[in-house]
């Protein structure tokens, strides 16, 4: 019943001591907060971060793997996400009645799938009869392997032990696994989590692949904004994998094999590529030795090298127009550098001033004064942050108004940023709100675990999530004008819009039920 605006990705205790405007009492709170954090790097390279909060006998964790769909090999888009689904299927010890036998059966499934796909993909001379036989053989092998499966046992054990909000998320940059649990299950959790990271079994893989295809239909194919977003990115990028569908192109994700998923695991799920943050009723003194014992099972290994493709500079404006039976939407994006760029906080300032709340420039101009838009936002980084990304704009026209009006109105606001400084009040508002949002984000165990793991991964030191406020404070009005002039130029722009097709649905069919 109370609005909460947690910013889960940022936290900032540390720098706040330096700010006399903040109450002394809260500074003390914050100091004590900082003392609660312990970091341990295990011999296999895996980093554990513990943050003590003893208010209630619970904890939340985030396992942050620095590999996402940007790392999918060519022709295998959607692989990182497919692997993430596999990580819920159990191990050689959980989810099986007889792993020795199941292992042999799974090898047969893989061989049968290879044989089927080899025939299916033949450019010439494919035999439909043979395909049918191979398909039956595959299904039989799959049935045989499933005899050994205890379905969903991994998640069932977690849930029966009080795991709450069990989920995982794969982005282009990274993969995160998370849930919350009563504190007396910490060791059970350590067993479960270390097992699935170290000892994944490609169980029920091909049915799970169908599940992911349904996820694609839901998020992209059957969703107008999902379609628009996928086309915007595919058009804005010519070389870098940020332009590739994160859930995977249908022909690719539908043909990922278990062997490919396991190869991805071997390469990216190594100690040096994983950070685990635990926040809650835990104690480093008693719990760290136990955690070290379990998480030492993860194979040692340095961080694999990052994707090295660099998007070449865009030199021509590009656009996508989708004509369909959907109300109009306008989007555009401009290439911007990655989070490591010295101007990262300047982009934060621009999106805050343009989009944050009813005081923002886009709301006041497009929604309130001109009354042409229902919604208008500018935001970044999109679609990821690890590599150079986009600064994107999004607007929904009011009935009777068009995407081109959105475009013109957004460009007028951009021109204002380029030709005149923002006011001191606007810049100060950004800095004040950034600081408060960071503080609010601390309230939630799960949000804090996400932040600690992410900052440790991205900067090599969780303290950076405090030091970012330093960068926020250094942003000047001249910075905003300079960055706007460099980035918001026509040749760096890709737009994508939905124009409503006036053809009524009735003209296509009689609307009769199937």
């Amino acid at each position, binding site marked *: *019943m*109370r*609005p909460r605006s947690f910013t889960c990705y940022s936290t900032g205790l540390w720098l706040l001591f330096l700010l006399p405007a903040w*109450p002394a009492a*809260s500074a003390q*709170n914050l100091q004590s907060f900082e003392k609660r954090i312990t970091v341990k790097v295990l011999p296999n390279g895996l980093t554990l971060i513990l943050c003590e909060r003893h208010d209630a006998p619970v904890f939340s964790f985030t396992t942050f793997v620095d590999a996402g769909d940007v790392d999918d090999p060519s022709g295998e888009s959607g692989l990182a*996400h497919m692997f*993430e689904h596999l990580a819920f299927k159990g191990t050689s010890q959980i989810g099986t009645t007889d792993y020795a036998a199941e292992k042999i059966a799974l090898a047969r499934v893989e061989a049968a799938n290879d044989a089927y796909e080899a025939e299916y993909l033949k450019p010439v001379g494919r035999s439909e009869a043979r395909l049918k036989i191979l398909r039956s053989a595959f299904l039989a092998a799959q049935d045989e392997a499933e005899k050994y499966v205890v379905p*969903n046992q991994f998640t*069932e054990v977690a849930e*029966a032990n009080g*795991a709450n*909000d*069990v*989920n995982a998320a794969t*982005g282009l940059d990274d993969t995160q696994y998370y849930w919350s649990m*009563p504190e*007396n299950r910490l*060791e059970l959790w350590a*067993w479960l989590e270390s097992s699935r990271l170290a000892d994944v079994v490609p169980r029920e893989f091909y049915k799970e692949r*169908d*599940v*992911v295809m*349904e*996820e694609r*239909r*839901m998020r992209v*194919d059957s969703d*107008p904004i999902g379609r628009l977003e996928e086309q915007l990115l595919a058009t804005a990028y010519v070389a870098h994998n940020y332009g590739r569908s*994160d*859930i995977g192109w249908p022909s690719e994700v539908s043909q990922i094999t278990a062997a490919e998923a396991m190869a991805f695991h071997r390469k990216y799920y190594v100690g040096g590529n994983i950070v685990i943050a635990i926040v809650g009723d835990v104690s480093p003194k008693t719990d760290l030795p136990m955690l070290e014992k379990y998480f030492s099972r993860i194979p040692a290994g340095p961080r694999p090298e990052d994707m090295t493709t660099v998007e070449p500079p865009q030199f021509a404006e590009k656009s996508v127009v989708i004509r369909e*039976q*959907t*109300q109009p939407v306008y989007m555009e994006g401009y290439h911007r550098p990655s989070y490591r760029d010295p101007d990262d906080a300047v982009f934060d300032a621009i*999106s*805050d001033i343009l*989009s944050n*709340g*009813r005081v923002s420039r886009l709301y006041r101009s497009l929604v*309130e004064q001109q*009354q042409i838009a229902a919604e208008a936002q*500018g*935001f*970044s980084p999109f679609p990821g*942050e690890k590599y150079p990304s986009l600064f994107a704009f*999004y607007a929904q026209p*009011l*009935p*009777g108004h068009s995407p081109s009006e959105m475009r013109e109105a957004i460009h007028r606001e951009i021109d204002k940023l380029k030709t005149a400084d923002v006011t001191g009040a606007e810049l*100060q508002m*950004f800095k004040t709100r*950034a600081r*408060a949002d960071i*503080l609010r984000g601390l309230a939630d165990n799960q949000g804090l675990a996400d932040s600690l793991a992410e900052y440790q991964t991205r900067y090599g030191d969780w303290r950076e999530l405090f030091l*970012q406020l330093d960068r926020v404070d250094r942003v000047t009005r001249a910075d905003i004008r300079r960055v706007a002039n460099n980035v918001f130029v026509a040749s760096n722009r890709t737009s994508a819009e939905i124009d*409503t097709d006036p053809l009524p649905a009735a003209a296509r*069919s009689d*609307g009769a*039920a*199937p």
Partner: protein
Amino acid sequence: MMRVGMPLNWGPRVRIFGPGSGRLIAGCLAASAAIASSVLPAQQSRPWEQIPIPPLHAFHPQQPKRIELKNGIVIFLQEDHELPFIYGSVLVPGGSRDEDPAKAGLVGLYSQAWRTSGTASMDGDAMDDLLESKAAHIETDGDDDSTAISWDSLTSDADQVFSLAMDLFFHPSFSAAKLELAKQQEAAGIVRRNDDEDEIAGRESAKLVYGAGSPYARQPELATIAAVTVSDLQAWHDRALKGKLIVGIYGDFDPVATEARVRAAFEDLPPVTPAPPRHDEFPGPRPGVYFIDKEDVNQSNVQIVGIGVDRRNPDVAAIAIINEILGGGFGSRLFVKIRTERGLAYDVDGGFGLTYDHPGTFQVEALTASEKTVDAAKLALAEIAALNTRPFTPAELKRAKDDILNSFIFEYDTKDKILDESERLEFYGYPAGYLEAYHAALEKVTLADLAAAAGKYVHPGKLAVLVVGNGPQIKPGLDNLGMGAPQPIDITIPQPSAPPAGGGAAEN
């Protein structure tokens, strides 16, 4: 790397579990300790069962201080000094179910214009400037049974923000211009409401259950929002404030000074007027198959719906456990049968929505490829029917109880969750000990209770099936469900005779 100003849902991120998948449970203020074992098929060694589960650390959840003023208004104060923020809210009885059907959408417009209009001494725009410069907020909100004002700020700004919030609460100055702005937003939403398959399915399935004109399902139209005037908003406000208000304060406040301030703001109001009893009827859906054609999708959104129960139901604990067995999480019947074993859906779940003061819906949903629609719908219908025919097993009962009872603590593991729950119970007139009683009832549920509750509340013959999907792709057709010919639902957006406020004719 901050995500300042980023709309919540932006940025691709794909998950293991869909957005609609959530367990329908309430909390309880009791801790439990158990062991990790569960009843499962024979298999190789089970190393997780060797891991000790020590007793849970002692936990004494902090209850808010409850103050009942002489006029009947109730105040809850919940201190939490970890961070330098103070949050507050006033919950006001009466919501969209109480509005004039000819002015459907009034509460939505009211809850926007209330805040954006501001007060006689400070208009909404000036209030935005002042609050945002302090990273503070005052917002107003509307729901089907209530409206609310809420605020938050740093501790150092709390006195000023409280005064502003009280000024807005007691002395709003509804502005015609801000009402027009709210109407434009609402009209944009109406015109766009058929773009998203999920939104269509949610809205139209509610209309099947409750009736299109029901206070629980009717929707604003361009004509009904056009009918709302500034004096309607003022009249609504004046009447609403006579109800039983519930005030909540949470965070880093001084208890003595804050109590005095809140008392002073509310204790001189006249005695509250109790809400009149409602006489709604809940006949449930007309059984059959309903279809909405959407040409731009390749996945069907299948909703199977019937009338459900509310939380005062004496069998609510057994029903909650049936929910868990049917659709709660990875081990549920629907998840295993439709997703794990068949790969037919990513998003599949269902159960009874446990509402507080009127019957909720019984609802099972599955999102599946167009050509698999009949297959998935049949499986889901079979699982519903099986609630009455396939005996619940001891393993299912144990899993469901473990799932619910061992995660109960997450209903009250933070002080703000405890405050929210206290306010909710107060609002709906439930006893303060409701959650403890609910927890105790859950522990006692037996297999016989499950069978009895399923027999009493699961009625496979009284369900409606709604499919939103791409007609030509749905093969075999929906008549194969054996529930009669599919009945098309017309979702054309009615055009008012005059253009809608501020917008010109809608383009649909």
